[in-house]
């Protein structure tokens, strides 16, 4: 009894006794399974904030209370817990974490990598953080097979076009669905800071995307933001990056001013000589005397700068370098980030703030963003878990026109206006014009009080630099989201989770056109402003049952989802401004006011069942039914399903003896999914559109013809593949074959123009995409302080039209026909230049008496008579992929990401326009024009110059080029400072690095950025930027 009492007393007072207990010093070495020391491994005294890291040789020393529990951990390895004793050293050997137990974020939850029967690729946190970029999607390019990411244009903050496993839709959106933290994301991707992203999962096949079935036909990208970890001391990390950028690929060359002038003279002379049949002398004289009046400007100061023999006499008083004036030589980029994360036993939190500002290539272009996020998860009590993610981001993007055909597009300007035309306004004699303040002003080419140096023949009433400096196009965006969930455990096997997501994005699109110069000068300036609000509300209720009976494991989900997107649009426009007034209050004449509210809703019921036997045989089936407001009541419900299975061969006894196979899995899946995105809000309703007022009368017109039976676009996806780890973990990889057939495609079928409608949106046709994806990773070298990892992934994709409602139809530079791809060029074939007269020729089929081609061809100089052919060239690449490597040596680390594309063709319309041979005056040309035909017998592929409407540079194979490229997308070289050095300053981690983005590009066709639109046509876009930056990551 007494002993019991004493023990009780001791037990009750043990805390006090413990206080009196000794601290002990524990030391040792932590190494991996090979016995190699692990630097930077962590030793933590559980339940406290006391922790250390191992040094370069794996040594650690920690002072703890005797009897405390120490946890030894290292990324990628299984942690171990040991009781602290005074017995030293305590050496620990850590085993690699079973990668297959690694948990991957999938649709509506997580799954172990092993159990996935579908095709899911994951970009891990380390991969994401090793290539910091402005938009998160840059991390995907080249790291996952089967994904084609195309960055069109060089405006920072622009989102790329993403296609997963080919192009599955034509008019409906072919973009994948983006899910952020469990809910569909309708904001702009550039509002998410990459630094705050923990992982990105890409779901490519039917079974993985089936739970998003009604909108997952084109694949799903799941973005998961960072969260805290349980029982970790609070960590603060700071990051800073400074970078400098310029154009990643060179632009096309341009003719110099003297060449331009002489060549234009030749073009005019040729017209007089060959078209109007003047004698050579008369033609030359006519060209000389009409040169200035045709070009309308005279930099040479003499009446006939080119004499009747074509010789240039005179020096130009100006020679404008438009490119230098319009583009930044160097653009800067800077980024700062702060994040704080940590967790107690029950609650974890992550808070991140990030600021970035990046300039673009065209002067005054920039993107600036501030993004904050707070993620909190908590175990409220033993059967309720809850969490809340809140994010807010605001950004400004100033982007003068850099694509398309508006006069103010800076890139089009550089490629159109020769250096012959001045930047600043000139008097008729050529001297510089000075305004009332004694300063020069931009030449807008619209001064019709002067017959010389007054009105520019091309792009008049605009100035390439003036448009940038005097006008403004500013987009201000904000994005706020709240994502909360509560998870209730009803029974150990039965869970209920309710998830509510609210998102509000605003876009303010402000445009100011100058009051005195340019397109709005006649109305004293114009301000046009759009203010749009986008609100999304998503509620998901999930009931999940999961249980194991012996070797059988069963998982069932029943999900109910309601989704609502509301677009609230408002726009206003007014003219008549005083100088420096750019707000609508200052407008004298309101020009227009508009607004509309559009709404879309979806209701869905989803169920999924998955079963596995002994973690070796897996099967999954799911079914989904959705109703959308985009279709009529009769056609709005769609049923989607999928099923799949996998077999882990390596668990079978017959493979036990095969030493070189560590893990081998076979999998297959099939499903039918839907798509209804980007087709408008009520595409099936024939309505009368407002906004066609005639003076004081309200006016409407009838909308285009509609198909009232429009319904869901469906895609049948099939996936067969294998995943393996071979040679004792030295080689990991996967090979997958997929086949996607989109049926009932929603497409704007072209109608005969004489019906008064250009097209009708209907479900027609089918497209098939198929391909094989390969992905291999290997730790090539791991020795002493050096380790080298290599990875390569590539895919071959084929696209084919499998059904159409009419035999064929022409779509711009393509013709769609069963058996052909969506993007196969169908254009006239150039037959070169006739050496007799210098005219361009094309091929034309010889027809038999009943109008059928006989198989023979002749050449013709009538473009409209030339036959169009399939040239077996497509704008879709035959093979795309990427190559990545990670090298670490002592404290240094290097990672590189290269992506490549082979087999696609591009129609370079920019180059075609530069080869126009002076058809119209005032447009620049390419130096390749030097090779033009000049006299009888000349063999060349550049036709003669001709200042008259002609078809020489009309769409033909002459301008169709191979577009293969290899791009070193990212290169990151870093140095992590020594543990011991940092301890002095109480710093837990410090890494400095140098990063290059788009460092090198090897391309088969120079002059354009190899990434153009998927259709393979150019559009006067700015090029992407090559950036070199220095960065620092600090952990406290």
């Amino acid at each position: 009894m007494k002993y019991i009492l004493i023990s009780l007393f001791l037990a009750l007072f043990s805390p006090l006794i413990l206080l009196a207990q000794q601290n002990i010093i524990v030391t040792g070495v932590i190494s991996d399974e090979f016995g190699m020391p692990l630097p930077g491994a962590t030793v933590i005294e559980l339940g406290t904030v006391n922790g250390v890291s191992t040094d370069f040789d794996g040594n650690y020393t920690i002072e703890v209370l005797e009897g405390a529990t120490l946890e030894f951990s290292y990324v990628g390895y299984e942690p171990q817990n040991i009781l602290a004793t005074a017995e030293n050293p305590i050496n620990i050997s850590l085993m690699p974490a079973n990668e297959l137990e690694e948990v991957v974020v999938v649709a509506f939850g997580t799954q172990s990598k092993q159990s996935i029967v579908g095709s899911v690729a994951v970009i891990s946190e380390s991969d994401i953080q090793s290539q910091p970029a402005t938009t998160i999607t840059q991390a995907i390019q080249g790291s996952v097979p089967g994904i084609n990411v195309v960055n069109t244009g060089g405006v920072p903050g622009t989102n790329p076009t993403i296609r997963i496993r080919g192009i599955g839709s034509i008019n409906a959106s072919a973009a994948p669905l983006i899910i952020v933290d469990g809910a569909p994301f309708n904001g702009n991707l550039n509002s998410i800071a990459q630094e705050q992203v923990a992982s990105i999962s890409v779901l490519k096949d039917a079974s993985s995307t089936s739970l998003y079935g009604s909108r997952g036909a084109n694949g799903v990208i799941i973005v998961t933001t960072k969260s805290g970890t349980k029982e970790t001391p609070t960590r603060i990390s700071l990051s800073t990056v400074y970078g400098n950028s310029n154009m990643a690929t060179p632009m096309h060359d341009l003719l110099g001013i003297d060449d331009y002038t002489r060549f234009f003279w030749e073009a005019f002379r040729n017209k007089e000589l060959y078209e109007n049949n003047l004698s050579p002398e008369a033609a030359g004289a006519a060209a000389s005397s009409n040169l200035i009046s045709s070009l309308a400007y005279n930099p040479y100061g003499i009446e006939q700068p080119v004499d009747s023999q074509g010789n240039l006499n005179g020096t130009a008083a100006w020679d404008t370098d438009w490119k230098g004036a319009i583009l930044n030589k160097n653009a800067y980029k800077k980024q700062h980030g702060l994040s704080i994360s940590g967790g107690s036993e029950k609650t974890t939190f992550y808070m991140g703030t990030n600021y970035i500002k990046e300039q673009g290539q065209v002067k005054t272009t920039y993107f600036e963003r501030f993004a904050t996020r707070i993620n909190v998860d908590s175990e409220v009590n033993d059967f309720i878990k809850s969490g809340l993610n809140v994010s807010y981001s605001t950004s400004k993007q100033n982007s003068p026109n850099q694509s398309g055909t508006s006069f103010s597009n800076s890139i089009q300007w550089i490629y159109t206006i020769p250096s012959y035309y001045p930047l600043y306004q000139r008097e008729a004699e050529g001297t510089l014009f000075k305004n009332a303040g004694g300063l020069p002003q931009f030449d807008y080419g619209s001064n019709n009080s002067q017959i010389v140096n007054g009105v520019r023949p091309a792009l008049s009433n605009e100035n390439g630099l003036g448009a940038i400096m005097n006008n403004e196009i500013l987009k201000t965006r904000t994005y706020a989201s709240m994502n909360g969930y509560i998870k209730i455990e009803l029974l150990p096997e039965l869970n209920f989770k309710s998830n509510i997501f609210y998102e509000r994005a605003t876009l303010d699109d402000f445009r100011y056109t100058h009051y005195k110069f340019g397109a709005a000068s006649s109305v004293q300036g114009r301000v046009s402003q759009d203010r749009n609000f986008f609100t999304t509300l998503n509620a998901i209720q999930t009931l999940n049952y999961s249980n194991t009976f012996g070797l059988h494991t069963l998982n069932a989900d029943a999900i109910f989802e309601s989704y609502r997107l509301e677009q609230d649009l408002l726009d206003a426009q007014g003219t008549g401004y005083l100088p420096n007034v750019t707000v609508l209050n200052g407008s004298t004449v309101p020009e227009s006011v508009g607004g509309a509210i559009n709404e879309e809703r979806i209701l869905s019921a989803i169920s999924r069942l998955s079963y596995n036997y002994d973690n070796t045989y897996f099967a999954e089936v799911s079914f989904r039914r959705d109703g959308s407001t985009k279709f009529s009541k009769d056609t709005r419900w769609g049923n989607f399903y999928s099923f799949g299975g996998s077999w882990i061969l390596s668990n079978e006894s017959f493979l036990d003896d095969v030493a070189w196979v560590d893990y081998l899995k076979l999998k297959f899946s099939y499903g039918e999914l839907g798509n209804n995105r980007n087709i408008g809000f009520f595409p099936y309703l024939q309505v009368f559109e407002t906004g066609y007022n005639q003076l004081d009368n309200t006016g409407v017109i009838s909308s285009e013809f509609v198909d009232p039976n429009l319904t869901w676009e469906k895609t049948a996806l099939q996936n067969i593949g294998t995943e393996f780890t071979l040679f004792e973990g030295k080689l990991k990889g996967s090979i997958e074959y997929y086949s996607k057939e989109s049926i009932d495609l929603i497409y704007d079928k072209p109608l005969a123009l004489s019906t008064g409608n250009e097209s009708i949106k209907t479900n027609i046709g089918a497209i098939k995409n198929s391909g094989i994806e390969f992905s291999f990773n290997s730790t090539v070298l791991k020795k002493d302080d050096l380790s080298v990892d290599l990875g390569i992934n590539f895919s071959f994709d084929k696209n084919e039209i499998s059904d159409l409602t009419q035999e064929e139809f022409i779509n711009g530079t393509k013709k769609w026909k069963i058996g052909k791809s969506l993007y196969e060029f169908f254009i006239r074939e150039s037959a070169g230049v006739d050496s007799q007269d210098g005219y361009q020729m094309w091929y034309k089929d010889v027809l038999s008496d009943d109008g059928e081609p006989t198989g023979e061809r002749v050449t013709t100089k009538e473009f409209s008579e030339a036959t169009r052919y399939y040239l077996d060239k497509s704008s879709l690449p035959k093979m795309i992929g990427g190559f990545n490597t990670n090298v670490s040596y002592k404290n240094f680390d290097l990672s590189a990401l290269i992506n490549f594309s082979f087999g696609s063709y591009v129609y370079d319309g920019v180059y075609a326009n530069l080869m126009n041979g002076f058809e119209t005056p005032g447009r620049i040309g390419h130096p390749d024009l030097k090779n033009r035909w000049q006299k009888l017998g000349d063999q060349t592929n550049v036709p003669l110059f001709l200042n008259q409407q002609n078809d020489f540079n009309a769409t033909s194979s002459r301008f169709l080029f191979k577009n293969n490229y290899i791009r070193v997308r990212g290169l990151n070289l870093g140095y992590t400072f020594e543990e011991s050095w940092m301890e002095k300053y109480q710093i837990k981690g410090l890494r400095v690095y140098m990063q290059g983005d788009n460092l090198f590009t090897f391309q088969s066709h120079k002059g354009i950025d190899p990434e153009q639109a998927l259709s393979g046509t150019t559009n006067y876009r700015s090029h992407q930027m090559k950036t070199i930056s220095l960065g620092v990551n600090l952990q406290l």
Partner: protein
Amino acid sequence: MIKLRATLLVISFLFFTGCEKGYLDEPKPTESVNSSVIFESADGTEAFMSGILRASRSQFDRTDAGGLYSMYFARVVKGNDLVLGQQWYLFDYENNNREPNYTRTIFSWEFPYYMINQLNQFILGINGSANLSEIEKDSFLGQAHAMRAFYYFQLALEFQHTYSYDLTLPAPPIYAEPAIEGKAMSTLGELYDFIVADLNIAIETTPTNRTNKSFINRDVVYAIMARVQLVMGNWQEASNAAAIARQAYPLNANQYRTGFDDINASEWIWGMPQRADQTNYFFIAPHAFTDNINDGYGLAFWNKDFVSLFSATDVRNTFFDIYGVGNGNQYFARASSKFTFDFSSDIPIIRSPEMMLIEIEANARLGKESEAATMLLSFQKNRDANAVSSGNTGDALIEEILLERRKELYGEMGVEWFDAKRLRRGITRTGNHRIGSAANLVPDDKKFFLKIPQKEIDANPNIDESVNSNR
């Protein structure tokens, strides 16, 4: 106990987020209306007609392909009187803009057919309406038939030879109601029959009152009929129609001094109004292109030969030497102040002087020469106080009338091209042109009409490549 609480929580959640019946039926389009609103009341129907009129003068495709006014100006520059600088319409000026894939070809086909489709839907909707009264129906139907005839007339002018050449030649297809599938080509004879039939329906039912001069009333119908009959060579019908059309629109030469931009001028029978908040900005033709002073393109000038035909006291002599070249022969030697450009310049379509001249010409051709000569003189005196009778008869009188048409209508609807085409004459370039004889047209020249657009051939199963093989 715990489980009971949990179950209650779950139930309350399901209740909270449960769906209401009709959740998917609620969203409706907010910025458009459906046909029941339009055709069940006169206001709704008038809104549709207003929208159609607005569509005829909006920015359809690009600067030189914006609307009806662009088609007219393209015809103006094909003649000899206007000299165009290096600007929009330059290929029309060179008479070299008719291939199947050129903008002019596609636009001249697509735009009239766009209007015809809207009008077909209009007619179909009215005929099926239960609420409109007979009078309202008739009034609207009249306007629609007249406009449809007008646009088919534009197609006939642009895509085939003139009426008297060969009526069996292929002509643009005729759609009497909305259709999704393209139709085959018609013949020129069928097309003109259809046009005249539509105009006859319109004459019966269109009232004389209208909301404003942009709408069609009975006078406009007669005016269109006069033009059509003139082309067909039916002089008596043309004269009758013209006489009725111009009755309510007395002559008033004043607008030649005030900028030719006001639809309320007494002579304007039909026009396209512009307003600062309903404007085509720089697309407005002819104003933006011929006004050399205000901030438009302003690179159209006038042939010195043409200018020399005006007497000094003719109110229509708006020509001046803008750059001070004196007697020089540069193409920009003579500018005109007839049209003043700003964003609210109204555009004329048909004016009463044209009707009067149709009457005069028709009478002359019918042999009523003295009547014609008298009317001609009174017209000339209205424009020029010092005008005296020329005493011309026979062919000389006809030539004088045709010249008077050029003097009156220069810049407006392409009078030279219109007359040369219907009378099967050529157009010869003289004087100080920038592009001279290279742009000449011979009588019955193919360049008077366009090829069929490639896009149409591509998408229309009933029209194939062969349609362009002899164009």
